[in-house]
């Protein structure tokens, strides 16, 4: 069953680019899989590796000073395709949380459905966070799901973040939607017969 969310404290990996789209998160050629395994290896593939499969040193995932369960992205993270493979890649790589000032809708839903928590923060908090990470790559962020707060432990700045209560319940308890839907069959049939 899925791991439950509570309070996560971690260092962060910064990606200060706007409009990071799903094709960068997971290029189309990796969508041919018929299972959910192995996507972490291909997260940001074409930014991580060159055509000869050599690591591109300048890309943040290849920089050993950055690590952690939290990915911090610029505005409009996850725009583009509905490919849930993007969420599988992020989860598969080891990120449990993505922080941004703005998420594309379909990506946000896919992330939640895969127990990756998208945390929406203000532009100011995001800018402050990128600055803190740049000053000290080992700085930590605390994400408290029950309280719905995110704290920049380097500066002490803290913000409340929004999350749908139903999804919060699912994340806290490791539940998925299908069990819920299957338990509602009689309501579905009632609707069909009205």
């Amino acid at each position: 069953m899925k791991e439950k969310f509570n309070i996560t404290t971690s260092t962060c990996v910064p990606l200060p680019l706007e409009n990071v789209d799903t094709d960068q998160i997971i290029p189309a050629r990796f969508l041919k899989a018929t299972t959910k395994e192995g996507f972490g290896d291909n997260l940001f593939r074409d930014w991580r590796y060159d055509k000869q499969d050599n690591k591109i040193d300048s890309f943040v995932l290849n920089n050993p000073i950055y690590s952690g369960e939290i990915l911090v992205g610029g505005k409009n993270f996850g725009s583009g395709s509905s490919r849930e493979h993007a969420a599988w890649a992020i989860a598969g790589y080891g990120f449990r949380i993505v922080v941004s000032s703005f998420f594309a809708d379909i990506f946000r839903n896919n992330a939640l459905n895969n127990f990756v928590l998208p945390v929406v923060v203000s532009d100011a908090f995001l800018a402050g966070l990128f600055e803190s990470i740049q000053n000290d790559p080992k700085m930590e962020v605390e994400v408290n799901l029950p309280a719905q707060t995110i704290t920049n432990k380097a500066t002490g700045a803290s913000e409340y973040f929004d999350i749908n209560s139903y999804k919060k319940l699912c994340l806290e308890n490791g539940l998925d939607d299908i069990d819920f839907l299957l338990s509602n069959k009689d309501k579905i049939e009632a609707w069909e017969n009205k």
Partner: protein
Amino acid sequence: MNTLFDKIWDSHVVTTVEDGPTQLYIDRLYCHEVTSPQAFAGLRARGIDVFRPEKVYCMPDHNTPTHDQDKPIEDAISKTQVDTLTKNAKDFGLTHFGMMNPKNGIIHVVGPERGLTLPGMTIVCGDSHTSTHGALGTVAFGIGTSEVEMVLSSQCILQSKPKTMRISVEGKLNEGVTAKDVALYIISKVTTGGATGYFVEYAGEAIYSLSMEGRLTLCNLSIEMGARGGIIAPDDAAIEYLRNREYAPKGEEWDKAVAYWKTLKSDADAVFDKDVLFHAEDIEPMITYGTNPGMGMGISENIPVMESIPEAGRISYAKSLDYMGLEAGQSLLGKKIDYVFLGSCTNGRIEDFRVFASLVKGKKKAADVIAWLVPGSWEVDKQIRREGLDKIFEEAGFALRQPGCSACLAMNDDKVPAGKYAVSTSNRNFEGRQGPGARTLLASPLVAAAAAVTGVITDPRKLL
């Protein structure tokens, strides 16, 4: 007081989760081979059946090669994925239009042309361009694979209701301006994330002046500004479009359906969360210069200078132009291009091929240009030949390929090489979309045709 979106959404609510999403009934699930394997595997793991198999239609489109479709697919992984859909459809008792089936094609071309998409429906597919079907007055949107599994297992989905936005385009479109240009213009103004959280309704004189295929093109691109979906209230043109389509109702059922469809419009006093107005006269043929569909401009304009970009966005902007090998402030007219792609769920329909043919007729493809003409379905291919357009293409030095998503996202072998420029009638110009390092310039079939015969970016109005 209700918008059309509200009416369709509200009438499909099965129940609402307290403090949570709505459980929405889905009338139609379209299924292609890329986003369904794990969903079917999930059903097998649970030991359950597809709940309402008659509402599900399957077909491969993303992996299909555009040549030699009668032979096994050479790419083993692609072949496996396509075969997996065939097997899943068979095992679960679902209608499946496989490769070489005359009904096969790109799913968002086939749905409407077969009369499988009907006004008032809720429609989903594991594909963000599901928004296409909104042109026929449906609430249609893209979903992830887990959600596909939800719909297969219960014919329902859990979704939070988005806000509503009306985008009106008043006035008359100028010559040489197509639905694709209207869409790219809107997205350039609203920006790539500007409609996130909203379901868009398109309205206004210019919108209703578009043919049904033009409306399909427009609604297709709704996702590119982040909208949940895009809908156009059905009018007489929509009803005529559907008459006698294979899966559309007939006889008494047709009359009943039409009576219902005529009620599908926003109330006169409906209030939208956001109302946006554009003027058709401001729109000229468009072309994109950057790496998201919002980075587009009129073909006669220059690429925006850095000073006009908000400071927070300048790093990304510079990266974008660097990838494209373009400079801020430059014009694109006269720029040499290497590939032209006519096709995709955006512009792969008969009218797109007619428009392309009308411009290239009597001319020749530029020698240095590689052109891929990919009909959106076998039905479109049939019609191309029925109208003699294939002869026009042949005369001009173009060859027709076989239907599929093809170079839109290059999952098959139609890939644009690194560094090469492709004028493409598809929907995304992200980095690497058409192949690693490929440089995509999105445009209408007219602009694509003009580039194909001159070999450079050309204002098509000069050739009309």
